[in-house]
C-alpha cells in the first residue's frame, strides 16, 4: 500500500513534468528554469539549515562505538581504526565509513535452524547494492557536468570513456546507467520481499526509490531511445549556470520531465531521510576518538546535581560503622 502510494505520487510527478514540458514557452520556462533554480536553492539553504541544526546540539559525552581493541598497555596491539585513539584513526574510520560503507560491510544474516540452532551467514548484497547505487549516482552526476561546461574537461571525458568501455551500442552504453537502475530495483525488491524490511518501510522509503528510478529511466530513454536535442539541452544548461537562462524550442517533453523529477529530488532532499548524506559525517559513535579516559571530554551543559555526601552517609550510619570497627570522621 505504502509502495503504491509512492508509485502513484511519482507517476503524477512524471505526468506533471511531461505536461509542463509539452505546454507553451511560459510553462517550459517554469519547468526548465524556475524549477531547477528553486530546487537547487531549497537544497542548498535547507541542507545548511539542517546541518546547522544538528551542529547546534552539543555532543555532551564521548560515545564512540568501539569495534576493536582499545589502546592500553603498550604490548597489546590496539585497533587503530575500529577503535581509534587519534585524529588520524578517526579520519580513516570515517573515510572507510563514507567511501566503502564499512559498517554495512559487517552485515550478517542471522538464521534460526531446526532444533533451535542459530547460524550467522554472509549478507553482502545490501552492501553491494548500496555501493553500486551511490557510486553510479555520483558518477552520473559527474558526467552531467559536461552540459554545464563550454569545453568538456579531460576528467569528465576519462570517466565517460571508462564508463562506456564495453563499447556496446550507439550511443555507447554507460555501465553506471545499468548499475543505477539495477541497484534501485534491487533495493526496492528487497524492501517488499523481506517481510521485516517491508514491515518497517514508510512511504518515505519507497518514494525516493521510485523517484530516482524515474529520473534514471527518463535519462536512459533520452540517451538510448528517443531523440533529444543535445545542443538545445546544452544551451539551456549553459544558460542556467551563467544566470542567463534561455529555453530553446527544440527540446522534447521527456527532458523537462527528467529535469522536473530531479528538481523534486533536490527540493525533497533536505526534508527526508536522504539527509543521511550529511549526517553520516556527524555521527558521534563514529567520528570520535576513544580517548575519554586519557583526556577529559567537556559537556557544555554539565550542571551541579544533588548528591548524598559522605557526611550525610556517616550521619546515617555512624553507630553501625563504629561498631563494625570502621573509622569515622566525627566521633
Amino acid at each position, binding site marked *: 500500500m505504502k509502495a503504491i502510494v509512492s508509485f502513484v505520487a511519482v507517476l503524477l510527478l512524471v505526468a506533471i513534468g511531461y505536461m509542463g514540458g509539452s505546454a507553451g514557452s511560459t510553462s517550459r520556462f517554469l519547468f526548465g528554469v524556475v524549477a531547477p533554480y528553486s530546487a537547487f536553492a531549497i537544497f542548498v539553504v535547507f541542507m545548511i539549515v539542517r546541518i546547522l541544526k544538528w551542529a547546534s*546540539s552539543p*555532543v555532551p559525552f564521548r560515545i564512540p562505538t568501539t569495534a576493536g581493541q582499545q589502546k592500553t598497555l603498550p604490548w597489546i596491539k590496539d585497533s587503530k581504526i575500529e577503535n581509534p585513539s587519534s585524529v588520524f584513526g578517526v579520519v580513516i574510520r570515517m573515510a572507510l565509513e563514507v567511501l566503502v560503507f564499512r559498517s554495512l560491510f559487517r552485515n550478517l544474516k542471522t538464521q534460526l535452524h531446526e532444533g533451535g540452532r542459530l547460524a550467522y551467514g554472509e549478507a553482502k548484497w545490501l552492501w553491494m547494492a548500496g555501493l553500486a547505487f551511490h557510486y553510479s549516482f555520483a558518477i552520473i552526476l559527474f558526467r552531467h557536468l559536461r552540459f554545464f561546461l563550454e569545453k568538456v574537461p579531460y576528467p569528465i571525458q576519462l570517466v565517460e570513456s571508462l564508463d562506456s568501455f564495453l563499447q556496446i551500442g550507439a550511443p555507447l552504453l554507460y555501465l553506471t546507467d545499468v548499475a543505477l537502475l539495477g541497484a534501485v530495483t534491487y533495493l526496492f525488491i528487497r524492501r517488499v520481499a523481506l517481510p521485516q524490511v517491508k514491515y518497517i*518501510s514508510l512511504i518515505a522509503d519507497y518514494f525516493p526509490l521510485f523517484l530516482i528510478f524515474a529520473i534514471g529511466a527518463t535519462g536512459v530513454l533520452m540517451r538510448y531511445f528517443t531523440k533529444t536535442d543535445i545542443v538545445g539541452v546544452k544551451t539551456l544548461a549553459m544558460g542556467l549556470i551563467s544566470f542567463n537562462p534561455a529555453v530553446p524550442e527544440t527540446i522534447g517533453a521527456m527532458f523537462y520531465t527528467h529535469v522536473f523529477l530531479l528538481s523534486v529530488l533536490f527540493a525533497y532532499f533536505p526534508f527526508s531521510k536522504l539527509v543521511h548524506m550529511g549526517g553520516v559525517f556527524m555521527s558521534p*559513535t563514529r567520528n570520535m576518538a576513544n580517548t575519554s*579516559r586519557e583526556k577529559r571530554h567537556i559537556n557544555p551543559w554539565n550542571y551541579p*546535581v544533588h548528591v548524598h555526601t*559522605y557526611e550525610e552517609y556517616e550521619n546515617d550510619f555512624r553507630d553501625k560503622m563504629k*561498631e563494625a570497627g570502621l573509622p569515622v570522621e566525627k566521633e
Partner: protein
Amino acid sequence: MSKLPKPAELAKVSYNNPATDWMDTPVEFKPGMYCHGSKPKSLEIVGFPNPRDWRPADADWKLPENWKEILIEGIADRLKKYRSFRLFMDICVRCGACADKCHFFIGTGDPKNMPVLRAELIRSVYRKEFTTAGKILGRMAGARDLTLDVLKEWWYYFYQCTECRRCSVFCPYGIDQAEITIIGRELLNLLGLNIEWIAGPVSNCYMKGNHLGLEPHTIVGNLEYMLDDIETVTGKRIKPSFNRKGAEILFVTPSGDLFADPGTYTCMGYLMLFEELGLDYTWSTYASEGGNFGFFTSNEMGKRLNSKIYAEAKRLGVKWILGGECGHMWRVLSQYMDTWNGPADFLEVPKSPITGTVFENAKSMKMVHIAEFTADLIKNNKLKLDPKRNDHLTVTWHDSCNVSRGMGMLEEPRYVLRNVVNNFVEMPEDTIREKTFCCGSGTGLNASEDMELRMKGGFPRANAAKFVHEHYGVNMLANVCAIDRATLKPLMDYWVPGVNVCGLHELVANAMIMKGEKERTTDLRGEPLPNVQAKEEKA
C-alpha cells in the same frame, strides 16, 4: 509470576509480523516479558516525579494531567542537548541491517524489538511534533500522535532493550539504539515510569552507597565470610582495610560481587590477589558500588550516583582508583565519569606499584580496570601461576557488551585467561568481541518477574555457549561483569545445563600460588582440584 515455558518451546521463535501495520498494532503486556513498576518510596528518596503505586498492566497509570506536554517538552529539551538524539531522529534510512542483530529480536521475533522499529516508536512522535512534513502530512510522513497507547508501547519496549550497542556496530550511520533507549527512559522517568528493579537499587545506592543496600557493617561482615573461606582454602588469613585514609589505591567493584555467588568467588579472587601483591589499598563502604543503575534512569541520576567514587577518593586521599570486574560500570566510568564529575586533578596518573607501569590511557580519569592491571602483572612475571589447578575447566570467554563496544577491552582479559587456564575455547566469531551478544538481562532487566524476556534475550548468547559446550566440552563461561555473573547462571541452567559461570579473578586466584599458602586441595568453590581428584582415584 508467569510460568516459564520449556526451552524447546521458547526456541521456536516465530518471525512472522502481525497482519496490521505496526502503528495499528497496540502493545500487549505479556506476563514474563516486563518488570514491576517503580514503587513510590524508591522515587521519593531520590526526588523523582510522580511517585505513586501503579502497575504496568493497569489501564490507568495515574499520570499527571499534562503528561503529554511534559514529554514533548522533554523531547525538545533533549534534542537541544544531545546531537546523537537529534541526528538519529533524522538520518535512519530503515535499511534493516540492525534488525536481526538484536538479541531481543532474535529471541522474541517481535518486530518492535528490531532496533530500527524501537527507534521509530519515538521517531514517529518526533516527526509529528518537530517536523513540518509530519505536522502537515501526518501518517503519510510516518508521523503519529503521542497517545497513551504510544506511551505504553515506549515503556514496554524501552524496557526490552539492554543498551548493548550491538546494532550500532552494524548501522551504516552508527545510529546507536542505546542512545535512543537512554533518552526514552529519561522521558519515561519524567512521569515516574521506571521499573522497581532499577528504581529500588537506585535509591539504595543513593542512600547506602550500593545497589543492594548493604549497610557498612554488612559489607564488612560479608567480606569476613569470604575471608573465612579463603582461609579454609589457602590457610591464609587476610585482613583488608575499609575507608582507610592515606591508602595508595581505592578499590571499587559492583556490590553484586559482595553478595551472592558466583560473584563472591570473584571477590575472593580480588582479595587474594591484593594480599599476594601486598597492595596498599582500601575498600570503601560509601563508594561501595561500581555499577550504576542511575545510568539506566537518566543522565542526571547516573551522575548523582557516580559522584561518590571521586568524592571518596578525594576524602581518603588515595593516589588512584582500581575498578573491579563489571560491564556497564565500565561503560559509565570510561565514557561518562570524567565528563560528569571530573576533573580528578587531586589524583595521580595510575601507576602500578608492583610493575611501575603507568596507565597512560587512563591519564585523566585515573581509574584502571582490574583486567588491565592483572594483565600487566602477568606480563611482568609478578604472579606465580599454576594453570593446572583450573584443568577441570574448559573455559570460554563472554565479552560483556559495555567493555567491548563502549571501551574496547578485548585482549586484556583474554591474555589473563590464557595464563591462568590451559583449556580456553572461543565461541563462534560472530558472537564475540565487538559482535558479542548480551546476556539478555542488562540495564536493570535482571529481575525475576521478566524471566521469559531474559531467557529469550539471552538465547543467542546461550546458543553460542551451547555450541562450544557440545563441540569442545566447555563447562565454564567466564566474564568480567557482575550482571553477567548473576544472570548467565540461570541462562545456562535453562539453555545449556552443565555450563557454569565465573569471573576472571576467580580463575586467577585459583591458579595463583600464594606465598606461604598451604597445599590447596580445593578451588574457591570448595570443589576438589584436578590433581587431588587424580590422586584420590589412584589411591
